């Protein structure tokens, strides 16, 4: 800081771009003093969010979510498994979050990013504990066969608030999921009922003709906030996240119940009032995200 103060004359005539690179924290703080962000957003507002369902034709359910330029592609593939002895009438969900090297200059091939496994764990904890999906719905034949839903989320462009975008794409992929119609063959294996199969072997009854869509009970949505001094910045970009390090992620379900809250360390110790403010922002964001999801679903139905 001493050096920066001493060179006040120097940076008064410095170009904005150079100043931004040399003194990133000061650059951001000068904006924050005027209650505005470097991308002209207000402190508490999130970036534009778009959602497209059915982006991947080879998957059973898929969605592409964009928050600002952060882009997530989620796809679900359904496979059949033998349920565990403890829960013979339940299916299972396996969630994995990937950060391929295309998404950010910091990720190199061969070495999976540390953030990826952290977000992967957070996502599966959040989705499984929110009770959004009743695992009993994934059962096909009690004790014999059940669905295993493989949900893979790929980060295509990492520009901050990765968890929020990943959760949004995951929820959207589940709402787009069309469970394939299957039947039980002579060997006790589950096989797909394709169109020509139907005509050939009508005696085989599909096991799940009535259960094509999952019921989603109050889906969860999240908002990540960045804490810096007394400021709370909603939905930070990658640049903001790299300069100011303390984040709080609040996950609420659609009935405004708190699903989870993460504050993974960081230099700023949050007061309870700050956490409450974050939750309030998340409540507002939840409404926005819910309408984005509903719009995407109704767009899909029109097509």
């Amino acid at each position, binding site marked *: 800081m001493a050096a920066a103060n001493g060179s006040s004359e120097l940076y008064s005539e410095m170009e904005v771009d150079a100043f931004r690179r040399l003194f990133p924290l000061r650059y951001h703080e000068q904006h924050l003093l005027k209650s505005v962000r470097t991308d002209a957003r207000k402190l508490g507002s999130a970036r534009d969010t778009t959602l497209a369902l059915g982006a991947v034709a080879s998957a059973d359910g898929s969605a592409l979510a964009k928050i600002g330029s952060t882009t997530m592609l989620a796809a679900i593939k359904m*496979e059949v498994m033998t349920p565990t002895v403890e829960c013979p009438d339940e299916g299972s969900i396996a969630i994995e979050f990937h950060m391929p090297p295309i998404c950010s200059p910091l990720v190199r091939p061969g070495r999976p990013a540390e953030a990826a496994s952290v977000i992967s764990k957070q996502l599966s904890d959040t989705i499984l504990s929110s009770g959004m999906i009743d695992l009993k719905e994934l059962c096909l034949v009690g004790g014999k066969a059940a669905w295993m839903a493989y949900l*893979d989320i790929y980060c295509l462009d990492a520009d901050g608030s990765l968890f929020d975008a990943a959760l949004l794409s995951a929820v959207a992929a589940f709402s787009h999921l069309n469970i394939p119609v299957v039947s039980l063959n002579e060997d006790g294996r589950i*096989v797909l009922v394709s169109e020509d199969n139907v005509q050939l072997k009508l005696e085989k009854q599909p096991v799940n003709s009535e259960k094509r869509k999952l019921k989603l009970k109050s889906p969860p949505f999240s908002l990540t906030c960045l804490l810096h001094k007394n400021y709370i910045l909603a939905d930070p970009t990658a640049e903001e996240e790299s300069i100011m390090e303390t984040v709080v992620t609040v996950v609420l379900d659609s009935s405004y119940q708190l699903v989870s809250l993460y504050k993974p360390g960081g230099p700023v110790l949050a007061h309870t009032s700050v956490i409450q403010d974050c939750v309030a922002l998340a409540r507002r964001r939840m409404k926005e995200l819910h309408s984005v999801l509903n719009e995407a679903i109704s767009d899909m139905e029109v097509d």
Partner: protein
Amino acid sequence: MASKTGSTPATYSPSPATHKKKRIPIADVDWVRPDSRGFYQCRPAYLRTGAVSPAAGSAYAEFGNTKVIVSVFGPRESKKAMMYSDTGRLNCDVSYTTFATPNRGKGSDKKELSSMLHKALEGAIILESFPKTCVDVFALVLESGGSDLPVVISCASLALADAGILLYDLVASVSVSCVGKNLVIDPVSEEESYSDGSLMITCMPSRNQVTQLIVDGEWSTPKIHDAMKLCLGACSKLGEVMRSCLKDVVTDLKE
């Protein structure tokens, strides 16, 4: 809950992948391609640059169901400790998403595709323009719908141009499959699976130079001749499409 997902039980896909789909009657001269294209007709190409914001350059390509994103980073310091070099280095990596193929894959790196991509691009890049540094070309196949490698190569050269890396020319790549008596250009996965031979040409259309030629399977000399002609023609057309895609971005910026 977490423990249940931690140890994933053995699963299988319900779609019948083991017994092959009925072969198309290739003896017929006039069978119809799965997407009812003409034999010498390429899939419509959708190309867009600037798909990934933190990358130096990037491009998205969609040829039918084949969807690919390529990001270019650098020139930057090479992460591998290597000897001093007067010329720049090119580092390529191709990976697939787990849902790219009909049956869920591992989503691992494709070493052989990475090396083919490297060899296809190497000749087109002016490596002397960035000594001591490394340019990384990373490709992710979002969905595999056939002719993946040619699409990756064309998309990568577009991304390199978007990144401002000096090139001798854009690199366009097209493949042809030989199915029975017929040659089919830009084959989809289904056609690739029952083809008798395949040929892929990667070339720099405006210089008329070929950077890579791969011939697999059973071919007769006149057929190879026809296939090469067909590919080169398609490459020059694809080159024009790529060029116009780059020009569109510039004119959009000016307006």
